[in-house]
């Protein structure tokens, strides 16, 4: 997909989401869903960039999201940093941790990276709940209860002021999406493509896999941490429940439905998943049962997600058109 059509699809999707609040008249449930769609679509896009394009089997995306959330909450609660500065500092902290995790990880073979990053997520919970976490102000198993909202130009973007917060998130979403498209279409994106096709050949041409992978790991960690921080100032409370398998699976469904390495399909996946997740909420425990089953069914039946389906459809129409043209040509020549 070229940069122009990527940008068009993103602009149409986010533009549509952006004008929806005008018609919804501030219905708090709908605004909450829309805001969550924006936040998750960026987090899932980062994961797609790492896994689908850079080819790093990182399963630590939720962990980075939570690290961003905790850093920003601790900065603003314990150290009284203004939230608007804290969210960017949280992004920076997450990027540093991402690079520290990435340094040993990226030298490993694919499946090992998945293991280490996933184990990292699992070890994060006892860390935050235990005495070490309490020492840095994580609040132990109780979590952090009163995270202050972001203040922007004297306006408080708390969960009671949904529309300003939504547009603030939208602006950040657009900036981050632009960064992702730029990365994909710069020589970095080309380098990833080359590395994916043949790592040895790309290396022989002087493409450094390690350098590019570490850079992209750092940048996506920054963005993920930033949005985790954004989320925590929006909801105001934080606990280690964010690290549950549920959150992980929801994020996984977005990328599975959207198609891995099919950016911006994952944005459509986020729209779909967040909506379905909210619609299924009254079903209690069966919601997760359905979500888990959904992953299995989608991976089996639609390996490339929605994007694969659309591509198949357009290819089919293209082929039909071409065959009709060739038949007409044949008939006219006869």
């Amino acid at each position, binding site marked *: 997909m070229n940069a122009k059509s990527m940008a068009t699809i993103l602009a149409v999707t986010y533009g549509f989401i952006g004008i929806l609040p005008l018609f919804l008249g501030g219905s708090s449930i709908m605004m909450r869903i829309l805001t969550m769609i924006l936040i998750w679509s960026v987090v899932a896009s980062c994961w797609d960039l790492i*896994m689908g394009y850079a080819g790093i*089997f990182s399963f630590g995306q939720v962990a980075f999201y939570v690290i961003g959330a905790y850093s920003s909450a601790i900065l603003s609660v314990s150290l009284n940093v203004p939230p608007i500065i804290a969210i960017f500092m949280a992004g920076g902290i997450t990027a540093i941790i991402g690079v520290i995790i990435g340094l*040993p990880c990226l*030298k*490993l*073979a*694919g*499946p*090992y990276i*998945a*293991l*280490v990053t*996933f*184990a*990292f997520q*699992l*070890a994060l919970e*006892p*860390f935050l*709940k*235990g005495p070490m976490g309490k020492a840095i102000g994580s609040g132990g198993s109780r979590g952090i209860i009163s995270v202050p909202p972001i203040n922007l130009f004297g306006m408080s973007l708390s969960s009671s002021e949904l529309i300003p917060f939504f547009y603030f998130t939208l602006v950040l979403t657009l900036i981050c999406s632009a960064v992702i498209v730029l990365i994909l279409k710069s020589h970095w994106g080309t380098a990833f493509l080359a590395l994916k096709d043949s790592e040895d050949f790309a290396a022989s041409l002087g493409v450094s896999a390690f350098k590019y992978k570490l850079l992209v790991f750092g940048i996506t960690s920054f963005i993920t941490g930033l949005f985790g921080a954004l989320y925590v100032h929006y909801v105001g409370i934080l606990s280690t429940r964010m690290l549950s*398998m*549920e959150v*992980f*699976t929801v994020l*996984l*469904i977005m990328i*599975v439905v959207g198609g*891995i*390495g099919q950016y911006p399909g994952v944005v459509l996946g986020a729209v779909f998943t967040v909506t379905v997740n909210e619609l299924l909420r009254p079903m209690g*425990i*069966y919601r*997760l*049962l359905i*979500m*888990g*089953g*959904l*992953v*299995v069914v989608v*991976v*089996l039946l639609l*390996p490339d997600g929605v994007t694969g389906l659309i591509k198949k459809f357009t290819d089919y129409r293209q082929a039909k058109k071409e065959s009709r043209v060739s038949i007409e040509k044949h008939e006219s020549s006869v």
Partner: protein
Amino acid sequence: MFIEIIEIIISGLLNGSVYALMAIGLALVYGVTKAFNFAYGSFYTMGGYFAWILLVSLGVKGGYYVVFLTAIPFLFVVGYFLEKILISPLRKRDDWQMKAMMLTLGLSLFLDIGYIAAFGPNLKSLPDIVEGTLALGPFVFMKQDIVIFILSITGLLCFAWLLNNTRVGMAVQAVAQNPVGAQIVGIPKERVFAATFAISTILVGVGGILLSQKNFVNPQASTGIMIKAWVITAFGGMGSIKGSLYAALIIGMLEAFVGYYLGMIHIEIAVLTLLLITLAFRPQGLMGRE
């Protein structure tokens, strides 16, 4: 002090032996099929629930003999058909490894939530396989622990015999060494893949039956068990069965000591630290090949 240390070593040995049983299953699947099974821990819980249904819910006569006699064929069938239906269609694609990881992750959530939906969120306790204690000088052993240790070691030996001395085992080894070559000499590769998956399901399910007597049947234990088996496999060297055996014992000991001296909450952090340090110096694990 001295007695304490001996007791910790014994508990580490006990856990390590069951972990070895489970980790070897995962090492086998990875070595042969190159597929990552994220739902591995869910089969551990499945074994626990299977025993609970038979022993507590239905109250069958014959106790654990009946459980093992029925659980092994049951787990084999489950594993065999899951591989045939879910994993094998993915193999046609280039990026099937990633797809298989995602699918099994979804499957694990589905199974774990399914257990909660079917049996409720409470822990279920299994009866002890043997009751009573055995005193040897200053040490007091639970007979149950001794039986668990003997059973898991027997399981390991059976598995090693199966792999080295039977036609099925040799076919499995041939496919692990060279899938194309194995196919040329007429080994049904697809069936070997499914059989390997099934054998690993048996190993982890039996591990579940053994350990659930001590740790209860817990629908939320799956992820922890999966990651433990996986850490052991990576630590020992992916696909190396001997490596997994040593790694399981080391991790079992580490857990027992860290749990006793620093508290249970630090176990996962300690295990991850050990893994990271090992992988930083030996990316292929203890006994893995480059």
